[in-house]
């Protein structure tokens, strides 16, 4: 070990004697590594944003929609076919063991009025489970409870946007707003969720009990349900829950083996997986590009080391002639190459982190960079030094000292 330790200062000395060249040689690795770090960090940042947005939809979420009908060859959208019923909901609540909550959702767009203010928004009729499924929390007040829900109480919860539009900075709690001519007491205001990944304002809504909605907003129809939200007990159980829901609905709708589903079950986990895959593919491609630039950096190191070995032929001759073993000369040049690439790697990591931070703040991403990638980047740059430094080092070590001393 002492032998190795005494060779390392020789390598550093040689690099110091050629500062400018050492810097330029490292530049290839610096650029490659910082590109890699920026790529990985922006990939991870984009992914984090995506996950955050998907999380606001409610994880483990299944959406059950009525099926489409086909009329004379023209296929309608969801809802044109057989509608879902409250009985379907009850069957899901009863029969789907992989589901934690299920809630009906009906909605309509109406004008909400407070004194001289008014605002056009989407009014949702649902049950308290809705808030649990969508993972909403209240900023102020409370959700409506089960008894209010069952009895059809005239209460509602406002989204942040609606609250701001109607009340400004005032306190909406306990106030009465008119929703399609129905006076309705505000019991809570939801925490803001911001925009969805599609750019929709998720805070522009009013939620009231489903019974109230059905009796006051619709024409007293308490049988049909616009859609049903279901949350699975865990992310792993989402597809299990989906199968169970589909089985139960087929039973409910008395479909024979030959008949197609007359409903649709959307799985948001699938959507998330698809989006993540697309993001991963992009990041992966950029990562390959930075890997290529690292390779170019490595070749740059080999190139300069070969030039350096030729230029320092006489120096190598002196070392060999006074009795340096081949191994020690090899080691010295290898250490020089590894130091160039490792220092390049470290500088590249720092620059890359700086670049990723700057990018994250301009793009409004969170800055995410797992230490794993820092170790990978450093490991790769060390490896480049060893691989691309070996050939020039061996060339130096195998010189004939007599010829090397005479080299002009």
């Amino acid at each position: 070990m002492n032998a190795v330790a005494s060779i390392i200062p020789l390598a550093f000395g040689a690099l110091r004697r050629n500062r400018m060249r050492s810097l330029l040689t490292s530049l290839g690795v610096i650029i490659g590594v910082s590109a890699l770090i920026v790529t990985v960090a922006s990939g991870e940042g984009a992914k984090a944003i995506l996950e955050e947005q998907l999380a606001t939809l409610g994880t483990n979420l299944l959406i059950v929609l009525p099926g489409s009908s086909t009329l004379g060859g023209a296929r309608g959208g969801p809802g044109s076919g057989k509608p879902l019923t409250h009985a379907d909901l009850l069957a899901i609540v009863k029969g789907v063991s992989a589901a934690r909550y299920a809630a009906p959702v009906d909605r309509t767009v109406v004008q909400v009025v407070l004194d001289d203010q008014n605002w056009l928004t989407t009014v949702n009729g649902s049950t308290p489970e809705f808030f649990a499924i969508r993972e909403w929390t209240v900023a102020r007040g409370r959700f409506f409870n089960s008894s209010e829900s069952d009895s059809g109480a005239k209460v509602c919860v406002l989204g942040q946007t609606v609250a701001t539009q109607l009340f400004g900075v005032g306190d909406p709690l306990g106030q009465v707003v008119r929703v399609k001519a129905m006076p309705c007491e505000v019991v809570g205001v939801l925490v803001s969720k911001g925009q969805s990944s599609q750019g929709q304002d998720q805070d522009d809504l009013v939620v009231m009990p489903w019974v109230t909605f059905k009796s006051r907003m619709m024409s007293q129809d308490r049988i049909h349900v616009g859609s049903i939200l279901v949350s699975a007990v865990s992310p792993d159980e989402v597809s299990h829950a989906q199968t169970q829901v589909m089985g139960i609905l087929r039973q409910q709708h008395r479909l024979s083996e030959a008949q197609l589903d007359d409903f649709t079950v959307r799985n948001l986990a699938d959507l998330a997986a698809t989006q993540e895959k697309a993001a991963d593919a992009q990041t992966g491609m950029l990562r390959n590009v930075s890997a290529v630039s690292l390779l170019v950096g490595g070749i740059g190191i080999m190139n300069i080391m070969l030039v350096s070995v030729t230029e320092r032929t006489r120096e190598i001759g002196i070392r060999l002639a006074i009795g340096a073993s081949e191994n020690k000369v090899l080691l010295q040049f290898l250490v020089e190459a590894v130091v160039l690439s490792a220092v390049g790697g470290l500088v590249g990591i720092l620059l890359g982190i700086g670049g990723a931070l700057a990018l994250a703040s301009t793009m409004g991403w969170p800055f995410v960079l797992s230490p794993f990638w820092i170790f990978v980047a450093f490991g790769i740059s060390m490896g480049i030094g060893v691989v691309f430094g070996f050939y020039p080092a061996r060339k130096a070590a195998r010189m004939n000292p007599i010829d090397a001393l005479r080299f002009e």
Partner: protein
Amino acid sequence: MVPKPIIQLAGITKTYKTGEVEVHALIDVDLVVESGEMVAIMGPSGSGKSTLMNVLGCLDRPTKGSYLFEGHEVATLQKRELSALRLSAFGFVFQGFQLIARTSALDNVALPLVYADVPSGERRKRAEVALGRVGLAGREDHTPAQLSGGQQQRVAIARALVNRPRLILADEPTGALDTRTSVEVLGLLQSLHKTGITIVIVTHEPDIAAYAARRLVVRDGRILCDDKQVPHDAAADLAALPEKAA
């Protein structure tokens, strides 16, 4: 017990192949050098004296023949073993100084000790002592470019003796130096010789060879003559030389 000669060559032949042509650089050379001798090897260029020097210094292996160094056969050693022998027993003063550029005198002198795995503190101490012996105390931090030719050659001599060699080989040690500096360098070698180190000088100048007690003349790959002489005393000659013009 009779001490073994430090160098004992028997039937040493060295043949180089340049394309189809074979060049016989050394032909059947026999030579015995006793420990503590100071020998000058003379000869015109192309005579084979450099090849002889390379073989003696274990930088090159003979094609044929036996080389006993301190009684041990070295003609058949592997490269690795030859490196180790050069490091431990030999000191080299190469033609044209051969110092490492942009590196301090101290680091240049300490270089053999690095490869001999001497701890750094001791390396520094021994290199300082060696520089002191060649009269360069205080110049430890000078790089070769900051030293005169004579000083550079003295750094080279300090490097040759830092690992306490039994044999110092000097190839044209005064090649690029003026007369006065040449005599100074020879005086230094003579003083090292007095401490018991065997010294072999390769030169083409009879003036330089005159400072050795034994003179070999090599021509066409053979030792032409081998005679003893009373060596000049460099210290006395130096006193007689006019002072260098300022």
